């Protein structure tokens, strides 16, 4: 037990340092990431202007789209970047499928370690480094748009649920993408699957726009699929758009999805390894 924990801890530290190598590039990258956000702010500003019936003092925008005022929307889009910082797993699916295809996965089979577990540790380490380094750029942008958070910071209860759903969104993103990567044991090429995933993510996770904007016919798809927990749900919780029973029911469903994909990833891994055959060195 102790030996195992020490192995994991070592690997965690290695992953931490591996991530610290390109600091400069990294911080510039995070800063730049918000540039498209600036154009979005101007675009929505222009759009909400057209909803304005009469002039308001100080040019305040009063219109609403799908229950979101302009200020709500900006706050929402900022919060979604936070959720995405938890739930997005760049290169996870392709990394796993590549290591299955080129046989690298062998190294996990002959060592007494669990591949998925190690990848999880690696991701946790990478994400931690990311949050530490991205904190300043994020704080800068949140401060710049502080007036958009018209409800202020939510109470302790809501905030706790928010944090929980962020952590869950990390786990959900991880296990979901791991499952997609593990499908490579059956179909070597998973890029088309990744593409379909991205397509669904674009419309149903809410990282481009609040899900309340979707036409009513898609409501069932939002509810039946796990995508909303990758971006929309935590942000909506923070903004107080989801309250009462719906809030706790949402968390329960999110936990259920995490469990589902966790179990599925175990199943895929065990079945996949049985199918797998590696040759050569």
């Amino acid at each position, binding site marked *: 037990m102790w030996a195992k924990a020490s192995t994991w801890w070592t690997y965690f530290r290695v992953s931490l340092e591996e991530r610290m190598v390109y600091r400069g590039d990294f911080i510039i990258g995070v800063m730049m990431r918000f540039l498209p956000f600036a*154009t979005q702010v101007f675009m929505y500003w222009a759009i909400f202007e057209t909803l304005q019936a009469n002039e308001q003092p100080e040019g305040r925008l009063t219109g609403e789209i799908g229950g979101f005022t302009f200020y709500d929307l900006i706050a929402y889009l900022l919060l979604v970047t936070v959720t995405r910082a938890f739930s997005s797993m760049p290169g996870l699916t392709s990394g796993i499928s590549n290591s299955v295809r080129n046989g690298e996965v062998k190294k996990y089979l002959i060592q007494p370690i669990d591949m998925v577990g190690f990848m999880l540790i690696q991701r946790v380490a990478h994400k931690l480094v990311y949050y530490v380094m991205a904190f300043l750029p994020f704080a800068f942008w949140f401060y710049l748009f502080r007036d958009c958070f018209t409800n202020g910071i939510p109470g302790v209860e809501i905030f706790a649920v928010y944090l929980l759903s962020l952590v869950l969104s990390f786990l959900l993103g991880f296990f979901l993408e791991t499952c997609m990567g593990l499908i490579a044991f059956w179909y070597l090429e998973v890029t088309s699957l990744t593409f379909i995933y991205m397509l669904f993510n674009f419309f149903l996770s809410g990282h481009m726009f609040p899900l309340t904007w979707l036409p009513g016919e898609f409501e069932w798809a939002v509810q039946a699929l796990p995508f909303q927990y990758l971006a929309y749900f935590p942000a909506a919780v923070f903004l107080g758009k989801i309250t009462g029973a719906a809030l706790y029911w949402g968390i329960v469903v999110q936990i259920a999805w995490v469990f589902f994909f966790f179990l599925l990833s175990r199943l895929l891994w065990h079945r996949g390894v049985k199918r797998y055959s590696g040759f050569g060195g």
Partner: protein
Amino acid sequence: MKTYIQVFLTFARNSLVRDLSFRTNFLLQCVTSISWAIMNWAFFKIIFAQGKNIAIGKGTGWTENEFFIFLGTVWIINAIVQTFFMPNAQEFSELIRTGNLDFALLKPIDTQFLVSFPRLNWASLANFFLGIVVVVFYANALMHDAVNPLSLSVFQVLSYIVFIGAGVVIMYSVMISLAATSVWLGRNQNLYMIWFYLTNFYRYPMEIYQRGVIGWGLWGFFSFVVPVLVVANVPARTLAQPLRESGGNRWENWLILLLFTMALVSLWVSRRVFRWALSSYRSASS
């Protein structure tokens, strides 16, 4: 001149042969880029579905149909840039890093031409055709608009095409200048990212920036310093005529003048930057 055309055609043919030798991959790339464009279209469709009077800016005239002409124009320009310049700009950075630029310098042909066109990415042209379809579809819808129909003359359509050409010249100049900076930076891995962030600003009608200090600052910067704002705005305005109801406005002509001035200036500047970069180039190989 004739040599240049022949060399270009050879490049184009070789790239096509290369692209088509992996047919499934070629088709997949086409499908991918078309899907991206359709997602983009659907995104705006969702926004415009939220209310009857929604437009990109009050009094700007960019309502649904006009805006989709704008969007189609952006796709057309993007597709041209991605087909002809993108793969080459990336390759150029790589040539500098590896020192293989030596071989290009030795050839008896203009170096800028030689590094600008050797590889065309034909699959990206899918969005070019999709863009045309969208522009034609929405222009047609506007022409049959019951309240405020659009009338287009042959001259206007021709100017649309010429303006797109001028816009592409600007995009090319910005891109080749960016790529040339790898001479000093060594490796320019972020080239695509910087390009993406810069061009992100040209994807919307310029009216959205015309407010506030930051907005006007951005407008000025992207109109005069890195003049990407005129690239899609001028052709799209010419065709969609968002302000036709109020009889158009005068600054249209100023924009056209700005487009052509900026096309010439940026081409000249990019040529200078390229030459300057070459003079600082030290081969990396032994």
